[in-house]
């Protein structure tokens, strides 16, 4: 296992990337930082093997935590709705201008896997092979899903 000091150094190096990726998944900054907080806590608690490529592993764990959190949120929302209470969502959204707001809105229209691929390939510059490895899907699937995500985003943004 990687030593704690080494792991912390890696996490510091990759903190900007992890925040960007988390933001691409959650669509708002406070949730993104909450997600990265959970990620860092988990990685420090569980550690990481020396022979594992660190960055893809960080983002894979990040993606899994986001899926878990999204499921939990869905359950909480259903519970709130079933008890006939208005959901009180007071999250501070982060877009600083109209274009960013439109991009975040368009991203919401993508499926989870498309959003993950946009984050990995378009925002973070992962190769298709790296993205395929990170998400456990075939390279050909990455290629077609990234293309479809781009086309859909372009259409959505053109409508505004």
């Amino acid at each position, binding site marked *: 296992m990687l030593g704690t000091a080494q792991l912390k150094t890696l996490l510091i190096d990759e903190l900007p990337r992890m925040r960007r990726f988390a933001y691409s998944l959650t669509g708002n900054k406070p949730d993104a930082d909450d997600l990265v907080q959970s990620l860092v806590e988990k990685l420090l608690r569980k550690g990481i093997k020396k022979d594992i490529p660190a960055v893809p592993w960080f983002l894979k764990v990040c993606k899994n935590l986001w899926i878990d959190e999204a499921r939990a949120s869905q359950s909480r929302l259903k519970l709130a709705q079933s008890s006939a209470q208005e959901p009180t969502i007071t999250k501070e959204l982060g877009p600083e201008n109209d274009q960013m707001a439109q991009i975040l809105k368009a991203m919401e229209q993508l499926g989870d896997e498309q959003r993950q691929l946009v984050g990995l*390939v*378009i925002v973070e510059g992962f190769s298709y092979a790296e993205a395929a490895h990170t998400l456990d899907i075939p390279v050909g699937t990455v290629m077609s899903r990234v293309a479809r995500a781009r086309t859909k985003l372009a259409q959505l943004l053109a409508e505004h």
Partner: protein
Amino acid sequence: MLSEQDHQLISASLDGELAPEQEMAFKHRLLQEPALNKQYQAIKAMGQDLKNTFADIASTPVPQSLSSLLEDDIQVENEQKATQNNQWRFLALAASVAAIGLLSFFGLQNTSDNQVSIALTKALNTQPAMQVMQLDSNNQFIVLQSFRHNDGRVCREYQISDTNNQSHAIACKKNQQWQLEVTQSSVVAEQAHHVTASGEEVKTIEQYLKGAVKGEFLTSDDEMVQIKRNWQ
């Protein structure tokens, strides 16, 4: 209306995932198909907008609860980054001093107009691929693609054209000068509305590329990094 395959080609090209031969064929299609080129430019611009949007989280301070997990290390890291920034500033200054002696190579390309020569050097240094620009009142310039040569140099394949002629060439940068590697001139067909290349011309350039390209062509992101570094 573009096909799904065209959308995949655009996407794979932007991600640097096409094989050199596929990339070459695709770039030539871009020159000949305005609708494809328009979509390519739109998708490319959108990619940059996406990056800018999510990079904006850096403008928000790291929450205390998160930074406290890594607090001591962040302080050390910031000090290291400050040192690195000072080193980069020094290197940038050194490069700018050396660039004063930069000479144009354009005379090698059968052009006597020194004004164009200087403009071409500037265009090669600053122009992203697949964007047409006017070099002067007569000449149009476009970079088709950029790549790293087997010997480590960065190189750019480009075309220059006026209403009657076009030159298709590859130049590589060495010792802060663009050096012409291979060039072919041809007459542009009268009915053509934009730059086109003859089959023979492409073959010669392709032969050069096959022997010279190391691994992959540069992606648009790689190009932007090189442009910022002045291709050093």
